[in-house]
């Protein structure tokens, strides 16, 4: 092991294994996760050449080969727990997407949730056995997050008892679904249902697209690959055009809404139920944001500990991590990664809890959960996106090379800002909820849950110029006090946004126009609300930690996360008179002190994330720190190094010279 890293690990004040248990949920879960990981890593079926040196089609082939084996082995090993399935998949594919993602993650679950018993019988077992491989086709070329705008139609023909699925325009072509380009033979297509001359909105239909056996597109279907992307090279994101294509009536997923043979439409009991999948996927993305950020952080911090660049003092080349500017880049990201880890597991637990209530017919918590996941999905994915890029830049030039592994983490993660709901739209959905709650509070109603702080609004009468009494009570080392001032900031910005919305409406503008003219402020208010939620959940988590040393270490990360946020958004806290200028000075000073406090534990804190080298896929982030030797070995594998003299020399350089 590199002596620098050995020193770093020896100097840590805590045992990283304990934090690993905390992140996994229990020592038993850690053990089980490692067991699965080791099983996969030692399995020759899952080995392949480093994907960085493969072309796109080679990467697709390597992925589909592993996917096929994966499905088989998962059953052999009896993996059925949702967490374990997730681990298994992620270890096999090393965090990369794969062509069967939508089959496993969307097609099968949608069948389970929305298919009738008869439909399950017809489709589920063949799909389970991969005879049917499916995808989920919602997004169209011209329409994404705004679902009502989708153009694909499904018109019921009672004569033949069929639906006619049609893509009427170029913009209505289904575009982006994963696994559609080359892999799937079925798609769950979302289309506007039209029966008896009336449009009933979006419904889901099972559409066969390729012939089983020959795998050729069926007549009436135009399907293919959408071309190269920023990342997702393993994935055959595809397009699908349906030309008055007929499917039997029984292919509409009819557990909730139904179309009778004569064309009569039967409404679902509640349309909130379809929120379920969306809420699940979005809350899962919060965890994914934490994971991606944690990986990038692991790489950047380990590399900074072994990289000796310039000298703070002449003749003493310090590791990069001793530079204040480097700490200032990386440690707040480390703290954020921990914050998001805890928020992610909170979201997962909450989802399961509320899902149980839903199972018992109690839907009361759904609206808040829906609003919370939308905003937090946007907040965490935006923050993680920026954080990953910051980690990459903190690695200097090598961060740009695929040897660092961070470009790959970035391009794999960044779609999360767009898919499953574009982030700005997500923020505005949460804003709509916050405005509704605000109105309820104004009309004297008591609100519950994470927005309950808004109950205090009428009594605070927050005024921009009011000299308040709050500053005296701020204790910048106290989690409760910090949570409190984040709460005040959020309350103030929500209040301002609500008032400016009312102001625009009082100028007799339509509701929609007023909303648009307030939207920048609404996003800002929602951002503050989400920031408060993260701070609060992190503070709550601290209270639940038994081990004192661990609690102390995480408390410093909590303080850094909260204080750094204040320092970055100082304007909000100053303008609302939540803090004074001298308190901001204290905050800035304390942030710098915390960097020095966290410094000795930095490597141990990323070790605790417990990523194996092969999962990280990074030469710079290796556990043993032997970066440079391995960097050289890695480069030698480049396809351009296969010959000593490259053919372009003979083809172009020589003639260039002889032309004279």
């Amino acid at each position, binding site marked *: 092991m590199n002596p620098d890293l050995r020193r770093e690990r020896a100097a840590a004040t805590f045992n990283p294994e304990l934090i690993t248990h905390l992140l996994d949920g229990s020592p038993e879960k850690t053990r089980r996760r490692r067991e699965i990981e080791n099983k996969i890593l030692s399995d020759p079926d899952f080995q392949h050449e480093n994907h960085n*040196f493969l*072309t796109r*089609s080679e990467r697709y082939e390597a992925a*589909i*080969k592993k996917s*096929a*084996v994966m499905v088989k082995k998962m059953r052999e090993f009896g993996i059925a727990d949702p967490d374990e399935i997730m681990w298994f998949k992620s270890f096999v594919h090393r965090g990369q997407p794969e062509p069967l993602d939508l089959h496993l993650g969307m097609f099968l679950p949608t069948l389970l949730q929305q298919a009738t018993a008869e439909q399950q019988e017809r489709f589920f077992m063949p799909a389970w*056995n991969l*005879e049917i491989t499916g995808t989920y086709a919602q997004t169209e*070329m*011209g329409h994404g*997050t*705004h679902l009502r*705008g989708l153009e694909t139609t499904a018109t019921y023909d009672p004569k033949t008892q069929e639906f006619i699925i049609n893509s009427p325009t170029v913009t209505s072509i289904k575009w982006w679904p994963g696994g559609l380009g080359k892999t799937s033979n079925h798609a769950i297509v979302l289309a506007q249902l039209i029966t008896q001359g009336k449009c009933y909105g979006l419904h889901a239909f099972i559409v066969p697209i390729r012939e089983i056996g020959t795998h050729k597109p069926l007549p009436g279907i135009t399907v*293919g690959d959408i*071309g*190269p*992307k*920023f*990342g997702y090279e393993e994935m055959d994101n595809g397009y699908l055009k349906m030309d008055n294509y007929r499917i039997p009536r029984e292919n509409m997923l009819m557990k909730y809404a139904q179309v009778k043979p004569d064309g009569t439409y039967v409404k679902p009991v509640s349309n909130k139920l379809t929120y379920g999948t969306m809420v699940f996927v979005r809350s899962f993305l919060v965890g994914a944001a934490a994971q991606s950020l944690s990986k990038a952080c692991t790489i950047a911090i380990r590399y900074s500990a072994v990289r000796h*660049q*310039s000298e*703070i*003092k*002449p003749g003493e080349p310090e590791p990069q991590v001793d530079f*204040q*500017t*480097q700490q200032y880049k990386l440690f707040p990201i480390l703290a954020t990664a921990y914050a998001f880890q805890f928020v992610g597991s909170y979201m997962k637990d909450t989802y399961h809890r509320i899902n149980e209530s839903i199972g018992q017919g109690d839907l009361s918590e759904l609206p808040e959960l829906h609003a919370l996941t939308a905003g937090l999905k946007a907040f965490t994915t935006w923050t993680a996106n920026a954080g990953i*890029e910051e980690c990459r*830049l903190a690695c200097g*030039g090598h961060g740009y*090379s695929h*040897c660092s592994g961070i470009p790959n983490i970035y391009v794999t993660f*960044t*779609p999360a800002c767009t898919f499953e709901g574009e982030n700005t739209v997500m923020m505005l959905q949460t804003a709509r909820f916050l405005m509704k709650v605000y109105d309820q509070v104004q009309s004297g109603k008591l609100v519950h849950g994470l927005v309950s702080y808004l109950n205090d609004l009428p009594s605070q009468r927050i005024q*921009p110029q009011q000299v308040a009494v709050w500053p005296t009570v701020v204790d910048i080392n106290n989690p409760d006090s910090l949570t409190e001032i984040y709460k005040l900031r959020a309350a103030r910005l929500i209040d301002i946004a609500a008032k400016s919305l009312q102001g625009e409406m009082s100028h007799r503008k*339509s509701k929609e126009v007023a909303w*648009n003219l307030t*939207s*920048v402020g609404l*996003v800002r208010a929602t951002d503050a609300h989400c920031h408060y939620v993260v701070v609060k959940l992190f503070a709550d988590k601290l209270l639940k930690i038994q081990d004192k040393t661990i609690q102390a270490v995480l408390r410093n990360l909590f303080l850094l996360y909260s204080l750094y946020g204040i320092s970055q*958004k*100082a304007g*909000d806290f*100053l303008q609302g008179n939540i803090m004074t*200028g001298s308190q901001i000075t204290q905050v800035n000073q304390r942030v710098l002190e915390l960097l020095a406090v966290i410094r000795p534990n930095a490597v141990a804190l990323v070790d605790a994330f417990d990523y194996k080298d092969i999962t990280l896929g990074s030469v710079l982030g290796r556990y043993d720190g032997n970066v*440079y030797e391995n960097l*050289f070995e890695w*480069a030698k*594998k*480049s396809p*351009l190094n296969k010959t000593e*003299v*490259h053919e*372009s020399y003979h*083809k172009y*350089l020589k003639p260039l*010279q002889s*032309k*004279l």
Partner: protein
Amino acid sequence: MSSRAHRVSLGDSWSQRVHPDIESERRRQAFDVERLTNLLDRGARNTTLRREVESLFRSDPAFSLVNTYFMTQKEHFQAAAQKRFLLHKMAQRLNWPEDGLEIDYARRALSGDIILGVHTVATKAIISLGSEEQIAKWVPLCKTYQIIATYAQTEMGHGSYLQGLETEATYDAATQEFVIHSPTITATKWWPGDLGCLATHAIVMAQLICSGAKRGMHAFVVPIRSPQDHTPLPGITAGDIGPRMGLENADNGFLQLDHVRVPRENMLSRFAQVLPDGTYIRCGTAQSNYLPMVVTRVDILTSVVLPSLQKACVIATRYSVIRRQGRLRPSDPEAKILDYQTQQQKLLFPLAMSYAFHFQAVSLLEFFQHAYNAVQSNDTSLLPELHVLTTGSKAMMTDFCAYGVELCRRACGGHGYSKLSGLPSLATQVVASCTYEGENTVLYLQVARFLMKNYQQIWETEGAHSQRSLPQSVQYFTMVHHDKCPAQNASDFLLPEIYTTAWAHTAARLVEDSARHLQVLTQSGADQQDAWNQTSVSLVQAAKAHCYYVTVKSFQDAVKKLDSEPAIQLVLKRLCDLFALHGILADSGIFLYDGFLSGPQVDMVRTAYLDLLSLIRKDAVLLTDAFDFTDQCLNSALGCYDGNVYERLFQWAQMSPNNNSQENPAYKKYIQPLIRSHGSKL
């Protein structure tokens, strides 16, 4: 050629018809787009010449850029080599002058996607660092491609901190040779462009050791590949450094030197010489050796960084008037996404940056020419200011342009993730510049050092003459102004004096705070280096505010000079206002902190800012048209002049090699056997 015919350069079937949603944007012409284009080109004659050159690349499929999206790294590199070769033949055929604008315009037309970019940099390095004899010997060889040169500075373990480079050049007086050597693995030259497969020679930066003393970084011309068969010469290990986020055309390579001997004459010796007996003579400041870096930085800003941002703005803005989503009024059709305030907030700041940095680059170029001419006649007095201006501009422009391009990419929703949008390639091209040619944090700290030095100078030489002795860019330190901003209402914040003063005040205040912090630390016993490190976070903050001020100031000065073009002046002033106010809102804490701005004033800034968004929105498409990129050069299915986004996206996707056949061998090979195995069990 008319501007429209020029821009519409793909010649596909949709080019004939302009989408009504983009046509309507161009109907309202608040200013003359053509004259703005001329202004950006710095003269109507340049516009004409540029269009002539760009139109040469229209019909030849070998110059097509769209094909590169479907290539492997290796194929892409080949294509870039071929383009370079054809370009050279074209330049010869048309008798283009060597240092004329034609070559620059040709590079622009090809989006710089050609090889031998660093060969040019290395040639310039010989010109700035070589003696007259050395220039006479090497430069003609470079220009006729008899040799291909790379500029090898960065090492595997050492980048922006030049003193840390390990490669050694030890003078051997007995043979009158330098022994160039990479003593460790971290000393391996790593990243230089055109080195991986192409270069025959390297300009190697190495620690000079003569008569037993270390003399710092010097440049040496080292032959690395055989002129006969291009194989590496004895003692040389060289190759490709492996795949990267982008830069497929760059041929980034590595180079290890094992006691490689070169004659004494191969040390570039305009500013320092080693005599045959090993005596070392310096004939310039140490900074002179960094001149090639300055040249390269300015070149990168104007030819890579800024155009990347401008193109991203063109693509995202055009797409945002075609893409419709949701409704602003229940009775309306779906709205153009550019009509959403949140979309305007995302896109109009990068647009403002595009113009701000254009004018900053122009003033930088002027200062550069001035200083460079002086250096050529051995007057190096302007070098420190030139150095710090390019350093600051490089850090600020690359930071903000990288941020802006990525903002534009994400503002295009899912399609921004497709390479066919052109945006991922622009993003990967521009983010590289945040690190190469000087990592930005290191550069901000260099700017900070300059600021500290000059700030301290004010106190040391207090008196009437102090201001005159300050370099121009920091004269605002001594400007007398109010402690509080005098603005009374939102429209006051559209007065350039108001916001420029706000930036000057805050930058100066942050510089002062850092200086005081440094002083307190040193007085309490910390040594200089520790004190510097412990102040570095606030030093970077001060340097950033300073750079922002410099940009606002240069933009404002440029707008002021446009009195003869009132319509253009008006739209550019709005962009200047937006640029300045955006910065204040993004970091309002530093303005509120000492009470320079009050809370209500920040609210006024916000009001003024939101009003500007809706005003600039009306001109947004025309403001991006004015950059005058051809469709070919934009290389984007989303960003073409005619706005036919979806048809083109669909057609381009058909070019994907995956769509060549409906077969799927991987499916047959791996999934079908699995199904059969299940079948047999059933």
